[in-house]
């Protein structure tokens, strides 16, 4: 019986010589680099509402993406059929971008060891968890959230798992693979008090075993957090509008770094010089207290990977060191064209998508301030501890992110909760206004998904509590 715990071509019922034959065909004379990415994916999702687990959905997919690059050009084709014939058709399409798309280059595998790290050693594939166990998990969520407060009127929850096997064969003789488990538990509660209805959400997960959700009472914690936020929002007042100091809580508010800084440091935008950060390496883009990294090597994290989707091991990349811009995150194509190192950030949503430089886990290192002192330092401002989504315009650097749990700060004290407000700022400018960084770095609970060019990939963020001296808050109330 085929080995299901070690990545390999046997997952795709393929023989090495067939793969090499197709690869040799893509590597036409003028092609600089070629690779074939094989992926199989089994995902299962159960969801609950109105107190019952009503829905279960399973997707099984597999396919291959074939790519050739020549200079700045990329040729790409994919197929959900893995026959020799389909791979060859894809190969012919991919190499079409070469100036003279002919002449095969024989390729031999010289490097077949799998990634040096195993960041998610799981005893049982998440895809093997029985549906009944998933159902029980959601039932516990429902019971816990309803017990939290009688005003919790609706509880919705979902649990999703994905088991992905990838193999990358490239024209440099590499044949490497990885098995990537991923799961996520998401809870949404609606609280009702008369005609006042408010929502609260919480969730988490990672490349973890099923037991993770029961450890440290996480299931109940997730349920109570969603319920707490919904109840809290029942008393929320209008958010203030205008420029003011903002304190960001630790953990998930790290989405600030993802939007304001991270996207602008992806190598593709910088090669094309279309990023607001183009040509700023070595320059000050943040205050001295800010040091920011992207790190794909944190065990069991949602944004972590043993290798990226080009077979490069992930790493920790210094993005900003004490306020100075140090580096970009790269994939093969852009690293080569820019003459900078590979960082293990070449990622793709699936075999249908092309590789782009993408973030993994992006966070700011801890500072020295006491989080309570940071709040105390603000006379009048906003304390934001949880956020919905964010977005950035790479070219002019303007970014937004929207608070889902925030409070007013009045005379150094956290007072009333406020309704969701959007914060807007300019990427290369905003971190210059960070004056205090807490010693309480925390990573998010594992819910982040990043979208770029229509592709979604799981990511992580992290932040210590920090103070931004001025940022525009988009509320509705002028008095604040």
């Amino acid at each position: 019986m085929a080995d299901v715990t070690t990545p390999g071509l046997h997952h795709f019922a393929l023989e090495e010589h067939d793969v090499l034959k197709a690869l040799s065909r893509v590597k036409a004379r003028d092609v600089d680099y070629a690779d074939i990415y094989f992926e199989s994916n089994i995902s299962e999702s159960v969801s609950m509402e109105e107190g019952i687990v009503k829905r279960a959905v399973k997707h099984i997919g597999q396919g291959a993406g074939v790519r050739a690059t020549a200079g700045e050009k990329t040729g790409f084709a994919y197929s959900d059929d893995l026959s020799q014939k389909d791979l060859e058709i894809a190969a012919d399409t991919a190499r079409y971008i070469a100036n003279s798309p002919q002449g095969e280059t024989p390729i031999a595998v010289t490097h077949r060891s799998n990634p040096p790290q195993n960041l998610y050693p799981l005893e049982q594939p998440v895809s093997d968890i029985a549906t009944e166990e998933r159902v029980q998990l959601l039932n516990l969520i429902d019971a816990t959230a309803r017990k939290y407060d009688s005003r919790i009127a609706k509880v919705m929850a979902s649990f999703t798992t994905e088991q992905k096997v990838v193999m990358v064969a490239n024209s440099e003789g590499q044949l490497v693979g990885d098995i990537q488990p991923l799961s996520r538990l998401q809870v949404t509660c609606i609280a009702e008090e008369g005609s006042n209805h408010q929502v609260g959400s919480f969730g988490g997960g990672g490349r973890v075993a099923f037991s993770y959700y029961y450890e440290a009472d996480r299931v109940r914690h997730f349920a109570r957090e969603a319920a707490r936020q919904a109840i809290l929002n029942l008393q929320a007042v209008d958010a203030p509008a205008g420029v003011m100091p903002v304190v960001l809580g630790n953990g998930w508010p790290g989405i600030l770094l993802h939007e304001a800084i991270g996207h602008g440091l992806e190598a593709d935008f910088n090669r094309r010089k279309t990023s607001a950060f183009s040509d700023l390496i070595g320059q000050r883009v943040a205050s001295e207290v800010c040091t920011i990294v992207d790190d794909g090597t944190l065990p069991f994290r949602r944004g972590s990977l043993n290798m990226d989707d080009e077979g490069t091991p992930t790493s920790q990349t210094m993005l900003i060191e004490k306020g100075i811009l140090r580096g970009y995150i790269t994939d093969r194509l852009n690293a080569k064209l820019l003459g900078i190192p590979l960082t293990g950030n070449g990622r793709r949503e699936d075999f249908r998508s092309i590789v782009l430089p993408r973030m993994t886990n992006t966070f700011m290192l801890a500072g020295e301030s006491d989080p309570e002192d940071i709040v105390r330092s603000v006379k009048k401002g906003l304390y934001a501890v949880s956020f919905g989504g964010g977005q950035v315009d790479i070219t002019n650097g303007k970014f937004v992110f929207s608070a889902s749990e925030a409070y007013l700060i009045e005379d150094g004290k956290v007072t009333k909760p406020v309704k969701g407000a959007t914060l807007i700022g300019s990427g290369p400018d905003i971190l210059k206004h960070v004056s205090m960084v807490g010693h309480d770095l925390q990573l998010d609970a594992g819910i982040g998904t990043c979208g770029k060019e229509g592709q979604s990939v799981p990511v992580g963020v992290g932040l210590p509590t920090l103070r931004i001296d001025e940022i525009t808050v988009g509320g509705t109330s002028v008095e604040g």
Partner: protein
Amino acid sequence: MSTSLVPEHQQFASLATEMLDRAKSLGATEADVLVAEGDSVSVQVRLAEVDRLSKAREKSLGLRVFFGKRSASASTSDFSRDSLSRLVTDTCALAKAVAEDEMSGLPDANLLSQDFPDLNVYDATTLSVDQEIDLARRTEEAAMSADSRITNSEGADCAVSHGTVLLANHHGFVGCHQSSTYSLSVSPIAGDSHNGGMQRDAWYSVKRKYQQLDSPEAIGKEAARRTLRRLGARKVSTQQVPVVFDQETAQSLLGHLATAVSGYSLYKGASFLLGYLGKRLAPGFVNVYDDGRLPEGLGSRPFDGEGLATRKTSVVEQGLLTSYLLDTYSARKLGMKSTGNASRGVGDNPSVGPTNLYLDPGTTSPAEIIGSVKQGLYVTELIGFGVNMLTGDYSRGAAGYWIENGELAYPVEEITIAGNLKHIFSDIEIVGNDLEFRGRIASPTVKVRELMVAGN
């Protein structure tokens, strides 16, 4: 009740029937099968060189089974006998593991579509890779040559796709639907020599028919115009002012409306329009329609994701909320009838989606609308996700133009607009005459009485 099928679709139909039979033999009381296949070719040209060329062909099959009131779905792209047989077994096992749901089930047989009109959404024209490269090149060239301040580009894209969807269910329904999409877009970048700032914008055309695609020259020129007008943008001070939404941003307001009137948002109690049916949402001159059979529409199809006939639904008529958008399940939950809006990915449960949703145009031109504002904001771009569908609270990042004495005075950015969607709809003052479909949701220019703009 079946469309005429070409031989290759006949093959899908037999496959679907086989799956339905297999599910029945394993004890399923009802089932439906969705088969989708498609191919696409797309190119991206950047600074006159080919940046990316991409070609794809894919297929997938989704099965939904019912065991009485229990149900589950699954999909696969592997059409081998083994894989399909495993799919049926897996789906049946999943269904047995979930709870009974009183309202679940296929639509009643007598509601399934009986007619399959040709909606003119399929064009067999294929373009060679070189033709696509040429179109993308010309589009980018038109943008780059429009003005010397256009200094860079994120590239021009040309894409052509063809797809087929076949749906079959236990009531004997078999429907097949083919469609095509042609698109051309460019995203130029302008540099500002005064402060070194860069701005990017984009323009595009998407059509069902190749011949109807806007010319590369027109798309490139418009993209350049939209990018150039953003140069020198600044912040404005925080204030309450009238806001004019252009076609693109007004369309996003209709998108929020579509989510709020979706049967799923409503029965889950997650919509700010709960209890609004029959009530006033907007002034009397506001009419919003969802038309699933609009000829050549980007959201048109003869039947929905469950096999019900698509139709034209008045969502808002003379300012009153007249209908929700529903599929079978959400309609049953609300004690109503489906509006033929079941939208469905292969292997997923149906949900609700608009088909071609639009705000009926008025008679005022965009220039006249802007002319009616003494001091206010003309919004051309919105970013971020600051919309709470439960409360209607709205706060998004915005960019556009500041209006002074009825004229566009200067570009603005790094500001937010905030309010509540209920008030945004009730405070619509003017609807423009410039309705154009560039997607499944379309709106003319809209003027809203007042919103909070946050800036300096």
